[in-house]
């Protein structure tokens, strides 16, 4: 019986895939250890955001491919200028059309304009800012004060809480005027609330139970992006940023007793905070912590089910999301799918788990993550679907190496994904959408 072999889609037959020399037309991927930013490095240097090592290497490798760039350069600059103009036009409207904004934004934000446009763009896409510009200031003021209240309520330690709640007679031992000796009077404890209380309603008991979560958050925040000065190091700036990240995560954990804090949330939070804190508008940067909190809540609401352990095996949990990725790969590249899952038995859980739950923050360098997130957040299909398409594109881009590899080498490759041209990756991801059944 003749089985009709499933055709490889047309676009995959392009010369792109065949010989390395043809790759040069499409901005070559860099040699693995050093990631190359093909666009001229317009990284925000005023905050010393990137460690000097990476920026110097990207400059040197950018100059070596200058020949290529100059050919493509003029076309790219044109496209970028157009995109920037469109974006600016859209953002400066009185009432912003979100659909139109999404369409323009998914083309990508040009690097030069990114630091000033990105914060506002992301805030709009995540629904933090309402579409009508007139309501922005009142909305921002209300949300920012709400966050301050959260902090005041939730970040107090039990000593302060009991001090504010119960007014008891306080003896002043330094009172030099009173020469008397007195037996210090004992007062009742309301609600049996003392530090060693094991009662469920005791504020002390709750405090100690949450102390573990807070310790975990503290440890994870200290380990976030150790190579980037914004997040780590001994500077006062880094320490205050870490403090802000901690506060946001603690408030989130206390408000969401359902999922509390799961390791990895710090990674999802980091780019968000970075973008909002580096807003050139002074006022926005000052309130970055409050704004980031609400954006983080919004961002996580789409992905929350991935973090919930109980939902792992359900049809909304992480397992089913990974299965959807698998299905997507099967639809678009059956040969690769078969080779990965059947022949070499590389279970997608081994690599896709981290890709999906951390929204690819651990797979690429920081600048690339911001670009990817531009697309993930702005795509009208929704962040989860877009993320799955990008993951699928990631697999397809390295198909040659995967098809040639066995279990060990494939797993190694997928768990430390080689750096690649991000615009190309997003382009392929976009194409998958078009061809989706």
């Amino acid at each position, binding site marked *: 019986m003749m089985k009709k072999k499933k055709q490889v889609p047309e676009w995959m037959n392009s010369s792109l895939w065949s010989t390395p020399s043809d790759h040069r037309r499409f901005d070559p991927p860099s040699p693995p250890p050093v990631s190359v930013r093909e666009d001229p490095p317009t990284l925000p240097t005023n905050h010393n955001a990137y460690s000097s090592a990476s920026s110097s290497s990207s400059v040197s490798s950018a100059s070596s491919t200058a020949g290529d760039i100059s050919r493509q350069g003029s076309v790219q600059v044109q496209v970028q200028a157009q995109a920037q103009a469109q974006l600016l036009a859209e953002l400066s409207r009185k009432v912003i059309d979100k659909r139109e904004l999404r369409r323009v934004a998914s083309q990508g934000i040009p690097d030069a304009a990114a630091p000033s446009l990105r914060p506002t763009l992301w805030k709009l896409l995540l629904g933090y800012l309402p579409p009508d510009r007139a309501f922005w200031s009142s909305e921002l003021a209300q949300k920012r004060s709400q966050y301050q209240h959260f902090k005041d309520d939730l970040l107090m*330690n*039990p*000593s*302060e809480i*009991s*001090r504010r709640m119960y007014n*008891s*007679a*306080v*003896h*002043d*031992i*330094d*009172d*030099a005027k009173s*020469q008397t*000796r*007195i*037996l*210090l*009077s*004992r*007062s*009742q*404890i309301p609600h*049996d609330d*003392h*530090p*060693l*209380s*094991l009662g469920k309603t005791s504020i002390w008991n709750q405090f*100690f139970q949450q*102390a573990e979560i807070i310790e975990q958050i503290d440890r994870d925040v200290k380990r976030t992006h150790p190579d980037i000065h914004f997040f780590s190091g001994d500077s006062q700036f880094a320490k205050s940023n870490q403090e802000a990240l901690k506060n946001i995560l603690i408030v989130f954990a206390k408000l969401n007793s359902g999922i509390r804090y799961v390791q990895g949330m710090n990674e999802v939070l980091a780019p968000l905070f970075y973008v909002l804190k580096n807003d050139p508008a002074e006022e926005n940067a000052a309130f970055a912590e409050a704004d980031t909190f609400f954006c983080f809540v919004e961002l996580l609401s789409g992905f929350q089910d991935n973090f919930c352990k109980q939902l792992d095996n359900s049809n909304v949990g992480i397992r089913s999301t990974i299965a959807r990725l698998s299905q997507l790969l099967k639809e678009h590249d059956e040969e690769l799918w078969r080779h990965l899952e059947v022949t070499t038995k590389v279970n997608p859980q081994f690599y896709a788990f981290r890709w999906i739950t951390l929204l690819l923050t651990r797979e690429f360098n920081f600048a690339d993550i911001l670009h990817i997130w531009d697309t993930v957040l702005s795509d009208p299909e929704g962040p989860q679907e877009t993320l799955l398409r990008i993951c699928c594109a990631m697999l397809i881009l390295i198909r040659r190496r995967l098809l040639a590899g066995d279990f060990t080498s494939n797993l190694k490759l997928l768990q430390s994904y080689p750096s690649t041209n991000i615009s190309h990756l997003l382009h392929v991801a976009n194409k998958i959408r078009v061809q989706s059944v």
Partner: protein
Amino acid sequence: MVLVLALGDLHIPHRAPDLPAKFKSMLVPGKIQHIICTGNLCIKEIHDYLKTLCPDLHITRGEYDEETKYPETKTLTIGQFKLGLCHGHQVIPWGDLDSLAMLQRQLDVDILVTGHTHQFTAYKHEGGVVINPGSATGAYSSITYDVNPSFVLMDIDGLRVVVYVYELIDGEVKVDKIDFKKTSTSHSAH
């Protein structure tokens, strides 16, 4: 917010087999930052048990302690407060406030913690505060048989101290508190 446990006069194994069960269930590791013990544990096993509750343990020697290397008195600073520790059998008359006040001035501390009388007391005088956490096991003393097990937990928060008094009365744990603060950050020496 620093939690300091003050206890003493357990007299294990001579006069009591162990801490009361209700006390033991409350004393779990991880909550307390310091332990100050007036003395008369008396054996090393109790020392080890207290070490598991909290690594920062300070003990002064009681007359029945089997470990002879504990000091007679000890002072330590926690936050804004200076604490002094002494078993109290050296201060004669036992439990007399004037004599304890002399010891407090000698040690130059805000809070003096002593034991030996097996009775909980908390006094304030011109030099500061004197606290006696009583006997944590309710062991009899040379003065009286009628002893309720008790210990003290101090919550030092800035310039304020809340002293939680835990007593076992008729099989039930009763907790009271005493609140005091000091106004100046430095304690002037006499």
